């Protein structure tokens, strides 16, 4: 993209030496017009991407901190609870306020509010639904008596604290939940009970799997890329073709191939049984082993290709020169070759690592329940539980990790896009 810039410079120098102002102005104008046209060509894609991609991402991420379901459905109750803290008595005006809100809230908004309250305090959905169906739209004269008659829970703090904590418009509830934390009745941040700690383990698992796969891909990819870069043209072409082949095959197809191979009734077990090496088929699928072996297979091209393109630029004379200066092969490799390959290693490792963090299909098909990473939980909370806030909070964590690593990649490789070769 250097060509137009240098052209402009030469134009500038020519016109500066010429006294013809008009020509200079015309040129300026036509250049400006060309610039505007050029920007006009970029604009459609940028606007399209902002509308179809950037804004939706923003909408999702904003859900991790926005908390509007309860104030929308129960505005009077939220107002009545405004100055209250759990240390004080329950203010009497909240009872008629809740009755009023329940009477006037549209069903769908009320359902959203109940679902939101359930995410903070299990049992709230049932309490809200029961309260509404018992009230039947009636407006009792003694709201407090009516509510506590429906459930004694309205006499205790718990329900009101739940509403208070969900009064919005902003909340840290989802982000805390994504880190296995929550606020207790007094608003203090504490860890959730041991058997509900899911997400820190999932985050650790996501990074752990990505790390294992990256390390193993480097271990296998480095010698392979070295061979491809130093072999004869014909061999090199064959090696590169076998790397490009899986690169072009759809990820789903590759995952399915591995399931055909690894199943209890699959090809590997079949062969082992026939050869009499095992008597019972082995459990090769639905575990970490299967997941990693497939992930390495899938992401190896992202390791090999950057390594290859760096190695290709290192003249073999360097190693020979080192050898002639008396360096033993290992020394020459470590002091001369390796430092020159480091950028390729960095780029390849980051590419593999980033892809591993976001992978969804492969663990779903080949992993067991304890091999699922953040993407699985994001999908689960969107599809099964309809807890958008929590899905958004987990997305924030995943996206932040990817963004940081990607920035590192850009720094290391000097490329602004994740392109190969």
């Amino acid at each position, binding site marked *: 993209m250097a060509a137009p810039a240098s052209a402009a410079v030469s134009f500038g120098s020519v016109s500066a030496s010429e006294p013809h102002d008009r020509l200079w102005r015309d040129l300026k104008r036509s250049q400006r017009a060309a610039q505007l046209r050029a920007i006009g*060509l970029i604009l459609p894609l940028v606007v399209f991407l902002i509308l179809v991609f950037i804004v939706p991402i923003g909408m999702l991420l904003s859900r991790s901190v926005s908390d509007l379901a309860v104030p929308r459905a129960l505005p009077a109750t939220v107002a009545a609870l405004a100055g209250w803290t759990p240390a004080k008595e329950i203010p009497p005006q909240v009872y008629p306020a809740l009755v009023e809100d329940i009477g006037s809230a549209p069903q769908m908004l009320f359902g959203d509010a109940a679902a939101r309250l359930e995410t903070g305090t299990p049992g709230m959905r049932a309490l809200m639904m029961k309260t509404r169906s018992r009230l039947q739209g009636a407006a009792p004269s003694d709201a407090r008596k009516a509510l506590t008659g429906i459930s004694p829970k309205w006499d205790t703090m718990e329900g009101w604290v739940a509403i208070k904590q969900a009064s919005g418009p902003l909340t840290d509830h989802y982000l805390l939940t994504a880190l296995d934390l929550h606020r207790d009745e007094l608003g203090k941040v504490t860890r959730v009970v041991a058997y509900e700690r899911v997400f820190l383990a999932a985050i650790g698992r996501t990074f752990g799997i990505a790390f294992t796969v990256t390390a193993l891909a480097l271990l296998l990819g480095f010698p392979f890329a070295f061979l491809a870069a130093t072999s004869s043209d014909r061999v090199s072409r064959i090696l590169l073709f076998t790397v490009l082949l899986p690169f072009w095959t759809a990820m789903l197809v590759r995952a399915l191939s591995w399931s055909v*191979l690894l199943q209890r009734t699959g090809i590997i077990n079949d062969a082992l049984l026939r050869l009499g090496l095992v008597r019972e088929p082995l459990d090769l699928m639905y575990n970490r082993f299967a997941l990693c072996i497939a992930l390495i297979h899938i992401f190896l091209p992202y390791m090999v290709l950057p390594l290859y393109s760096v190695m290709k630029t290192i003249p073999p004379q360097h190693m020979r020169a080192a050898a002639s200066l008396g360096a033993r092969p290992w020394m020459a490799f470590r002091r001369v070759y390796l430092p020159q390959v480091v950028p390729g290693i960095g780029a390849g490792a980051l590419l593999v690592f980033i892809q591993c963090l976001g992978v969804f299909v492969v663990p779903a098909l080949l992993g067991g329940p304890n091999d699922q990473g953040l993407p699985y939980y994001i*999908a689960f909370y969107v599809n099964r539980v309809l807890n958008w806030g929590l899905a958004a909070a987990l997305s924030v964590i995943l996206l932040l990790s990817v963004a940081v690593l990607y920035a590192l990649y850009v720094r290391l490789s000097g490329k602004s*896009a994740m392109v190969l070769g």
Partner: protein
Amino acid sequence: MRISPYATLPQKVGVWTIRLFALLMCLYLAGPIVVFIPLSFSDKALFHYPIQSFSLRWYHQLVTSPEWLRAVLNSLAVATSASVLATILGVAAAFGLWRARFRGKEAVMMVIMTPMIVPAVISGVSMYLALAKVGLGNTHLGLILAHTALAAPLVVITVSATLSKFDTTLLRAAANLGANPLTAFRRVCLPVIASGVFTGAIFAFALSFDDVVVALFIAGPAQRTLPVQMYMQANDLVDLTITAAATVMLVLSLALMVGVEFMKKREVATAR
């Protein structure tokens, strides 16, 4: 790696180890990809080797069962439309980026590249959320727009790569000869960068045709693409139509790969 006639025994062992390693790696990389091809010609309804009798029943199933046929057609229609839209938007933007100089170009580049960086699950979930808001959730148009957004950066990259090798004086020469900018672009620039454009279009098509995750969220049952249909059937091992579908996808990917390699060759040829 050739063995020199003067090699010592450890050197010979070393070279053979490297050769064995390369062979095993090739097997590991290429082997698993083809394992389901024989299965797709099996007559039996179970995942079992060796195959006793061969038939085309699963291919027949693929083009006659309403669900599979719909998936195939959806995939073709969505991938074609998305690839065309992404190519139009991407080529224009790449050309503009190449010509324009302005502050904030880096930021614009970043906006254009985001779809390549964001993990697919997040892209899928957010676009599902937004498209549903405007009534485009579970529609073909919504899916096409989503795939266009994901594929456009690929087109920008490939076209930019060919443009960077293009000599601008050619455009000025065309202008001197009286061509308006559009004509100049079409008659001078486009033929030269055509290989980049086609490569980009192929990349875009492949991306749309391979995507499971984003389509899984945005597509309703009526928009299910082939990969989504395969994903949903992945654990049902009675019906081997999935192996036929996988074979078809594999052949298509190979064709696209050959197409891209051909374009590369052609580009080298025109550069000379």
